[in-house]
């Protein structure tokens, strides 16, 4: 397994999806159907938004080998645009989400075009710096409401028909958005395009010599990842009815790295597991008080030192099947 030799991400999964992944997927869907009857639905929706965000992030780190430290920019920017579109322009939720996702995609194109000029650590630092720039922009731009954020964003009616203020309706919509995003990522990874991405991760010069326009592939992957992060951010805004600076701050970029790392970089279900763990932890620690950042830091250190495959990576190794 590649992560054991120090490569970020695990070895390429089989190109055709094996049965056990279908089983895992079915289990996940069943859990999602059952969960709202046992757990507070808003909490699950939050987890799903972050799970999608982490999956989008993982597409880059796990399958192209690019560590973006600025993914909060895409989550937050889409959130602000969606919130503004729904509240001020009065768009229906689906159009507001489309506006948010489009914004993130364009932003991803710009950031990606700059960042893929360098590799490895530089790539991480560039994405971080550009995201910080966007943070300052959001802080100063009048429409974001500065530190007040955009509040009381209406959930509205989907397609002008379905009232999203009902909790269970909203839950179903969020689950559908999450599954759609998840499956899109899954398809991408297992497509010929995904194979080229993995080839780039494993050996970039070789991919170049085989005649692939590596930069183009990286850029497309980056834009896709940014757009899906945007989808997560836009959905989150509808769930919480607010968009705030938290989502564009670098700490959020760090959190998504942590989710993917805990769950398992380069695994399909890992980021979902990671999001469940980290968000539950945040919720639990909220009652504990002051130790949140310390605990997160300790998890980071432990994962890097002793648990690099993450939850799903370890599980996959135990069962000898990639998740």
């Amino acid at each position, binding site marked *: 397994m590649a992560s054991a030799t*120090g490569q970020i991400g695990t070895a390429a999964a089989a190109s055709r999806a094996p049965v056990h992944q279908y089983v895992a997927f079915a289990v996940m869907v069943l859990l999602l159907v059952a969960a709202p009857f046992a757990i507070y639905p808003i909490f699950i929706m939050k987890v799903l938004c972050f799970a999608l965000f982490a999956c989008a992030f993982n597409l880059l780190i796990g399958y192209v080998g690019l560590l973006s430290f600025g993914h909060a920019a895409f989550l937050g920017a889409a959130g602000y645009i969606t919130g503004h579109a729904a509240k001020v322009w009065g768009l229906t939720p689906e159009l507001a989400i489309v506006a948010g996702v489009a914004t993130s995609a364009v932003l991803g194109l710009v950031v990606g075009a700059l960042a893929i000029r360098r590799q490895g650590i530089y790539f991480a630092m560039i994405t971080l710096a550009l995201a910080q720039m966007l943070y*300052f922009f959001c802080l100063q731009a009048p429409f974001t409401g500065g530190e007040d954020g955009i509040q009381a964003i209406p959930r509205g009616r989907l397609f002008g028909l379905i009232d999203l203020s009902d909790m269970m309706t909203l839950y179903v919509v969020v689950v559908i958005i999450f599954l759609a995003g998840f499956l899109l990522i899954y398809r991408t990874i297992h497509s010929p395009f995904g194979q080229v991405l993995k080839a780039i991760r494993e050996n970039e010069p070789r991919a170049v010599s085989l005649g692939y326009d590596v930069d183009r592939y990286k850029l497309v992957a980056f834009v896709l990842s940014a757009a899906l992060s945007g989808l997560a951010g836009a959905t989150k805004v509808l769930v919480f009815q607010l968009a705030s600076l938290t989502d564009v701050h*670098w700490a959020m970029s760090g959190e998504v790295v942590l989710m993917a790392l805990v769950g398992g970089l380069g695994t399909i279900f890992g980021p979902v597991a990671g999001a469940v763990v980290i968000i539950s932890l945040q919720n639990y620690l909220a009652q504990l008080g002051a130790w949140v*950042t310390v605990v997160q830091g*300790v998890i980071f250190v432990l994962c*890097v*030192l002793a648990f690099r495959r993450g939850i799903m990576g370890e599980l996959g190794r135990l069962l000898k099947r990639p998740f």
Partner: protein
Amino acid sequence: MTELLGIPPQVLFGQVLLGLINGAFYAVLSLGLAVIFGLLNIINFAHGALYMTGAFVAWFLLSYLGLGYWWALLLSPVIVGALGMVLERTLLKRIANLDHLYGLLLTFGLALIIQGLFRNYFGSSGQPYQIPPLLAGGHNLGFMFLPNYRAWVVAASLVVCLGTWFVIERTKLGSYLRAATENPVMVQAFGIDVPRMVTLTYGFGVALAAFAGVLAAPIYQVSPQMGADLIIVVFAVVVIGGMGSILGSIVTGFGLGIVEGLTKVFYPEASSTVIFIVMAIVLLIKPAGLFGRAA
């Protein structure tokens, strides 16, 4: 010409001087990052947190041991440097052969821990630290009032930067270091203890951060989050300069300080983003950085 773009030249000159002071911090911090990166191939995300630790150690020394600024300037880098060496031996060493990105993640985690601990124990509003009496006051240069302490900051950091450059580029010790950067196995074969050199180098890079922290203590509020945002700017400085050369990171640090200083006069709203904009432009024109070697 009495005015440039509506600003009298005296004011402009004053701002350049102030920019230079900010640049001094960027230079010392990015130099530390470059030294560490050279040998360990790690981007030390904990650099900002260790800079903060340096400032706090100065405060400890004063509050608990009654040791003043000058002792702090000497002892704090030593103490934090030692802490760095412990971290290197116990943690960073274990991931030496892995993808460099793991180093970034590990040090990011360390930064969170260090900042969180300080916040838990010392609160978020910070601690007072005074300018040493010897450097209090200032001189009126005609065009501006220059506090003595600021002049000292520029002088001290220039000396430290140039000293570091001299050691690495012009001495035998430095040549070992550079050789180990190129080919550690070969250097090891010549009988030089490379792991020890790695530890000492990390300790030295971290000591530079602590040194900057002590310099900063009397002018910036000593608080747990003082290094958190700074490190991102320093990353941008490093990207702009490229990590290929020691002198490069020094020149870039001071240069960007001036650019930022001038932005504060002409368009203050953008002064926090100007370095990131410069970074974007440099990436478009010279992706390897101003002083970098193409990867």
